[in-house]
């Protein structure tokens, strides 16, 4: 059987999510086990009940990609460490803002994906610096790819491209959804989506107009304001916790 360290090494190298759980207190200090997102475990903490309890606490942390120390009981503290690939920022629209946003997001630690159905926009020349450039309709490109650590910035200004992307994003667990456009444009967008049956609660997930209000003017500054908002939401999620089942 592999050691826990070997499992971690394999997970980090392959980009497969894995968490380790380590006991920090008491006689079991140093006891360590590994946990996969599907709940599969390797090893245990030396106590059946404690192990079960720890797995229950660790699983949502792994899903959210979080690493933290948790007091399980007054006596027992555990350290849950998530090894997950970088979160992905999906940019819908091969526009000027996306060029800058992809560059900034890369520095901050995101995997970057740019999607556009228009071949004049989604060119390798404009987006040589992104991790993945997809020439396709956004709804097709995004389908099945968004998880709870994904962020989506919808930037085309064109309902034909923006709306399909938002439909997929709103039905996904994506932690950030933002859409470019003035308050007026955004209000019309919300009306269209509401007419399709999206509830006010669902539509409230869309950050629009996109970005933190820093007075941005240039595409590069707007990219900075968008990325700042993505980070703000990502970190807020980290402090208030993870999605809970109904």
């Amino acid at each position: 059987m592999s050691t826990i360290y070997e499992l971690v090494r394999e997970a980090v190298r392959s980009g497969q999510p894995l968490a380790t759980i380590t006991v920090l207190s008491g006689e079991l200090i140093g006891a360590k086990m590994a946990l996969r997102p599907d709940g599969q475990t390797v090893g245990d903490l030396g106590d059946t009940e404690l192990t079960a309890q720890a797995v229950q606490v660790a699983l949502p942390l792994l899903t959210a990609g979080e690493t933290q120390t948790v007091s399980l009981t007054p006596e027992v503290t555990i350290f849950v460490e998530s090894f997950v690939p970088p979160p992905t920022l999906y940019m819908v629209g091969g526009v000027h803002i996306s060029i800058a946003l992809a560059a900034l997001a890369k520095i901050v630690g995101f995997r970057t994906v740019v999607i556009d159905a228009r071949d004049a926009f989604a060119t390798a020349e404009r987006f040589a610096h992104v991790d993945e450039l997809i020439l396709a309709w956004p709804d097709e490109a995004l389908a099945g790819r968004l998880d709870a650590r994904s962020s989506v910035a919808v930037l085309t200004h064109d309902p034909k491209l923006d709306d399909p992307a938002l439909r997929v994003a709103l039905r996904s667990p994506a932690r950030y959804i933002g859409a470019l456009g003035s308050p007026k444009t955004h209000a019309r967008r919300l009306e269209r989506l509401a007419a399709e049956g999206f509830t006010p609660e669902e539509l409230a997930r869309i950050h629009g107009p996109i970005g933190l209000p820093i007075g941005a003017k240039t595409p590069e500054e707007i990219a900075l304001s968008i990325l700042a908002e993505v980070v703000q939401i990502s970190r807020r999620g980290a402090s208030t916790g993870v999605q809970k089942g109904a």
Partner: protein
Amino acid sequence: MHDILDAIDRWLARGEQVAIATVVRTMGSSPRQVGAKMAVSSSGAMIGSVSGGCIEGAVFEACQEAIATGQTRLLHFGVADETAWEVGLACGGTIDVLVEPLR
């Protein structure tokens, strides 16, 4: 993480033993976040960091001790205790560091 794994692979390939230190809890301001890691080999090679440099010396010693004894330990560094006074935590926060021999 990748750079630490590469170094540990090289050390293990040379037949060295390894200990890993991980920041597991911070209070107040601290330069590295929870999950930050540093690894030490039995010959004294070191990679990564668990602070802005203020506690690496003490953590290095603890890693060497963990390699020698095989024991896992939780270290606490803070402004209010003697160790912190000795090594100095300029940021004013507290840091808990788990030191584990690699098994």
